[in-house]
Each structure stands twice: as C-alpha cells, then as structure tokens.
C-alpha cells in the first residue's frame, strides 16, 4: 500500500492536535420542536388518547406488589411441584437446587412466569393455524425430491464457514490430539447422556478418559 506523503503529514498533525485538546464533558446535541401544534390538532389527538385502554400490570401475578390483575391465580394444576422442577432441571441440564431456599425461589420464579404466560389462554384460537415462521407463503408449494437435490447443490460450499477449512476443536478448553475430552468414571461406557453431550462422532476410550472422535472436519 502506497501512502502519499501529504496524507501522512495531515494524519500526524491531526493526531497531535487532537491529543492536545482538552476535552469538554460530552454534551448531547440540543434540539427543539420546529413547530408548535395547533390547539385544534392537539385536542383531536388528545381525544383519541384520553383514556388508557388497559394496564400492563394486569399481566403480573397477583402476589406481585404492582399487580392489578383481576384474573384468578394460577390453576393449581398448572403450578410447578418440586418433582416437576427437578424434571425440568434435568431436561435443561441445569444443576439441582442446593437447598430448600433455592428450591422455593426457583418454584416461585417459575410460577410467576407461568402466571404471566398463562394469559394466552384467554384467547380463543379455535381453527387458527399456528404461525411457525415468517416466510414467503406466496410461493409455497410441495417440496419434491428434485427441489431437495437442487437446494443441496446450491448449498454445497456454503457450510457455516463458506467452504473454508475450519477446526471444530479450536474452541474447546480440554482436548487430546484430535479429541474432545469429557471426563467420566473408569469403565463407564457411552450412555444416553454422552449422546446428549456430543451428538456427532464416535465414542472411543483413551485410558480413563471418555473421548469423542470427530469424524471429518465438517462435523457440526
């Protein structure tokens, strides 16, 4: 890259000048309205917005300080029990509560969240098709095998890395050669949980470590 002398000079003077500046505290650019709305228009809009139509605190559970909810409390059948909490924690691969206090907190949080989302049950959705994603429905037709083959061809070379070579092991904290390392007990075979952890790859054993081999660099 060739840099013109004059540009370099300009650049270094700019740096020097700016470094010497004493900088005032940041001040936002002050702005003011260009127009004053007419009384008539103000009255017109105010009439539309005069009375609030509802209160967002209606969405809060009744136990909440700010709640103005007038719907009944959460149906006991929808409440989270300690068993249910444990089930959810296991599904989420999150640790179990350490003590009763933490368990109570978790259950309260979940029940609050459930009260909040249970508001949807007020809406009758009979016969309404679920909206799964925003997509161009004007061009929707059945997918044929040819479409799939064509799409596969188009996508080739557009892996997550755009066809570049990419090392999936690079981000891992613990590895051994070309293997991720997952510590476990001696003699423990690949269990269902191992499959949950690493979905692709063949499980092998190296000494006391369960290691997972990555088959091919493109494995995601």
């Amino acid at each position, binding site marked *: 890259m060739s840099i013109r002398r004059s540009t370099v000079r300009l650049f270094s003077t700019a740096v020097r000048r700016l470094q010497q500046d004493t900088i005032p505290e940041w001040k936002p650019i002050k702005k003011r309205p260009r127009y004053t709305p007419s009384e008539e228009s103000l009255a017109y809009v105010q009439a539309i917005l005069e009375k609030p139509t509802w209160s967002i605190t209606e969405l809060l559970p009744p136990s909440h300080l700010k709640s103005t909810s007038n719907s009944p409390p959460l149906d006991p059948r929808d409440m989270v029990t300690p068993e249910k909490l444990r089930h959810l924690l296991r599904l989420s691969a999150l640790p179990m509560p350490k003590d009763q206090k933490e368990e109570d907190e978790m259950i309260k949080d979940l029940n609050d969240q459930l009260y909040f989302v249970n508001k949807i049950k007020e809406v009758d959705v009979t016969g309404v098709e679920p*909206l799964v994603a925003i997509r161009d429905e004007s061009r929707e037709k059945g997918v044929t095998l040819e479409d799939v083959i064509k799409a596969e061809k188009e996508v080739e070379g557009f892996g997550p890395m755009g066809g570049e070579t990419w090392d999936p092991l690079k981000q891992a904290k613990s590895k051994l050669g070309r293997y991720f390392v997952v510590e476990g*007990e001696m003699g423990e075979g690949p269990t269902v949980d191992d499959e949950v952890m690493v979905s692709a790859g063949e499980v092998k054993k190296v000494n006391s470590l369960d290691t997972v081999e990555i088959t091919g660099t493109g494995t995601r």
Partner: protein
Amino acid sequence: MAAKPVIHEAINCLRNINQRNGFLNAFVRVPPEQKVTEQALAASQRYDTGTPLSPLDGSTFAIKDNICTKDMVTSCSSLMLADFNPEYDSTVVAKLKNAGAIVIGKTNMDEFGMGSHSTTGFHGSVRNPYSSHLSAYSAGGSSGGSAAAVAGSLCFGALGSDTGGSVRLPASYCGVVGFKPSYGLLSRRGLVAYANSLDTIGIFTRDVRSAQLVFDCLNEHDPADPSSLDGCSRRRIKDYVIGSQSATNQSRRWDIGVPVDYNVAEISPPLKTAWVSTLATLRDLGHNIKPVNMPSTRHAVSSYYIIALAEASSNLAKYDGVQFGPHTAATSRSTNDISPSLQLVAAARENGFGKEVRRRILLGNYSLTSEAMENYFIHAQRIRRLIKEEFDSIFCTPNPLNPEPERSLNSGTGVDFLISPVSISSAPNLEEVAKADGAGVDGYINDVFTVPASMAGLPAISVPVHGNGDLPIGLQVTAQYGDEKHLFEVATLIENLLEADT
C-alpha cells in the same frame, strides 16, 4: 468528490472511547488503535483519489458482541463464550468491511440478549450517555452497548440484534435512531441465535438517512442463511411496495394509525405529551391521524415469551462445556439419579450461564414438554398468526408474503403506518432497575410495544422526538412487511419536526 474527513472522525471516536468508555462500559473489546487509524488512512486516500468503496467508506462501526467477528472474541456477554473466537465474520460484518467500514469494537449487552437494560452480562452494566456521575440511567437492552456507543459519539453507527425490541428500546433510551428491518432481509449468518423465528439484525445511527445507508449496504440475499429471503421474493416485495404506492413525492398525505391498545395506564406523562404533540404536528402538516384497534396487543407479550424462550432453550442446549465454554472437572459422583456426565454438563452450564438465562431456559423447556406443548407453545404460535392478521387488517397495503396478497380488504380505510411509543417511559435509573430485576416477569411487561412488530416480522424504527425533559424519548413507526422505503420517509418526516437548539 468532496473529501470526507474520515481520519478526523475516526480519531475523534478513538479519543471518545478512551475518555468515556470507562464510564459508559459500552465497548467490551476494541482493536488496536493503529489498526483503526490505518484503515481510516486508507479510506481517506480512496476519497482523495475519488474511489471510495461506498458511502460508508471509512465510517466506524460498533458491533454487538453476539455478532461474529473473525479473530475478535464474540462473547454474547456470557462466561460460556468468554473465549469464543469466531473463525469467520458474520455476513453483515463482512458486508460492512467490504464497503470500507471500520470495526471499532464489540459492544456490551445482556447475556445472550436476555434482558431490557444491558445489565445481565458478565461485563457489567452499560450506562446511558445521558447519565451524570450523580445518577446513572439504563441504556436499555439488550443491545445497550451499541446504542450507548452511537449516542456517546464513540462510533458512527452500530449493529445490534432485535428479537423482541432489543434495538428499538435502547435506541429510544439513548436518543438515537434504532431500526429493525423486516424479518428475513438482513443475513443472520454469524449472529449467535436467540430465537430463530424472531431474530433480526438491527441498525443504530444518529440520523435516519445513515440508517438507510447501512440498511442498503446490508440488504441482500444470503444463501448461507436459510431464513434469508431469496431474490425472487425480494423482487416481488419491491413490485408490491412500488406498485401499491406510486405517488411517492414528499407532499404525500399519509394515513397514520394510532393504536389505542398501546395507550396503557403506565405511560409516563412526558412520553404521552411527546406522542400527542408529534401526532398533532403531523396532522397540522396535512396527514390523517386515525385511531386503530389492535386487541391482540394485550396477549402479544405473553405469547412472545413462550415462543422466544422455547426457541432460546433449544438454541442454548448446545452449550455443554465440551465444545465451548468453561471446562469443568468431575467433582462429585452420581447423586439424585443423575449420571456423572450429566452432572458435568450441568456444572458447566451453572458456571457459564447467569441467573436470568437459566431462568429463561427453564420456562422455555417447560413449554416444550409433552404435556405443555399444545397448551403453551402451539397456542402461542396460533396467537402469533392472529397478531399478524391483525396488522394485515389495518394496513392499506397487503402483506407481500401472504398466499394471495392481491386481495386487500382495506384500500381506502386502512393506514400506511402506526406511530406508538417504544417504551412506557424514558430510561429508568439503574438503581430502580436493580431493585426490580429480582422479579423476572417485572421486566417482561416493558416489551409490550415492541413485541407485536417482532411477532409479525414487520419493519419498525425508533426515532428520537422532543421530550421536554433531560432524557431522550423515542417514538416507534411500524410499517407493512417490506415497506422500508416509506418507513424511512415517515421517520425522516418525524426527525425533521426537530431543529438544532442553538
């Protein structure tokens, strides 16, 4: 071509970062200054020789820390990804770089985008540039760092992500323009997923014109993003927008809708005044102001949280501490019928995820359990359809994505845009936020104005308006799907209601 003072601007930004970022906590990572100045120098030379790469050549950009940047850590403000160094640039960042833009840093956010004040990440809270040393205000979230960086003149523009309002809310709190495009227009390749069916890349700038420039630079089909609309759909949308509104001159009278269901009791008096006087002024300028009913608004935020968190819990399932994140050594042995390997994963997720993220994963998984699936997740998706249909029924232009969009039921009776608040008030004090934060759902209700456009995939923009007070106030303009062109026109109109106060 007039030379653009790109070097001067870049150096100003670097200086502002040095002086103000310590307080704002907007950037969590910046490249070496020399790298920035070298790029500015190269851009300046291109202007000198009349060969700038684009109108954005030499402009500095802040990138939210959930948008991948090659060789620059992309942490999502989560310990889980504290060392994640992407091997590639996200498509939007690559496009900015190709246009000559300079990446000047990565910005702070709520962990994985889960929050409304940019306080839940491991980098600590972002402070609103309008804060003083006496009282610190929320910058909004989850893209608070990007909003604060633009507002505080630490950069020219910024990228963020908007799932349910994460660009529009911080823009309104920080007094900048925050734009969420129609779903599927800007590529999300390289955006760390929160909720796939809702996530969009968003843009922060100080004026509407700049937001439009950035949008034009990024708005292109990306074959590497399956949710990106292809060229055929894009041409169809373009035909619709142009075909339906041929009279595109500045003196056009717009039909502007006021959604009365957004008029909630909690709206602060200054915000209400700003909303009313902006609409009244637009009426004086000859535009029609019409009240519209959108009853589904009341259930939008509840159904949003079901859908967003279900998708999030699924997206976050891959963080197990093996491929990414903190590696945890085996400590305990089988307890609670849980195998040692699941315990390892749980330990990594406990260390890697903050409290709010774990709370949201639990609810997300709840609504995906076999017994709750139909009553929660599917039910919420049905409400989502109702919300979209409600928007379609109030806009005078048909939704170009609909199977038979020619059929417009409301030509003549519908509206071109909706104008509403972005949030119930200007930025709250960070102390108040900290107090309320313990209560999870307390924060969820603040998304009530931004979530509907996300659910329907519509373009929406937050524009600063005069608020009489010290803190900025933003109003949101929402348009029919794909109608960015006219959205920018009306946003400019609102922007021009203000003039510099000298």
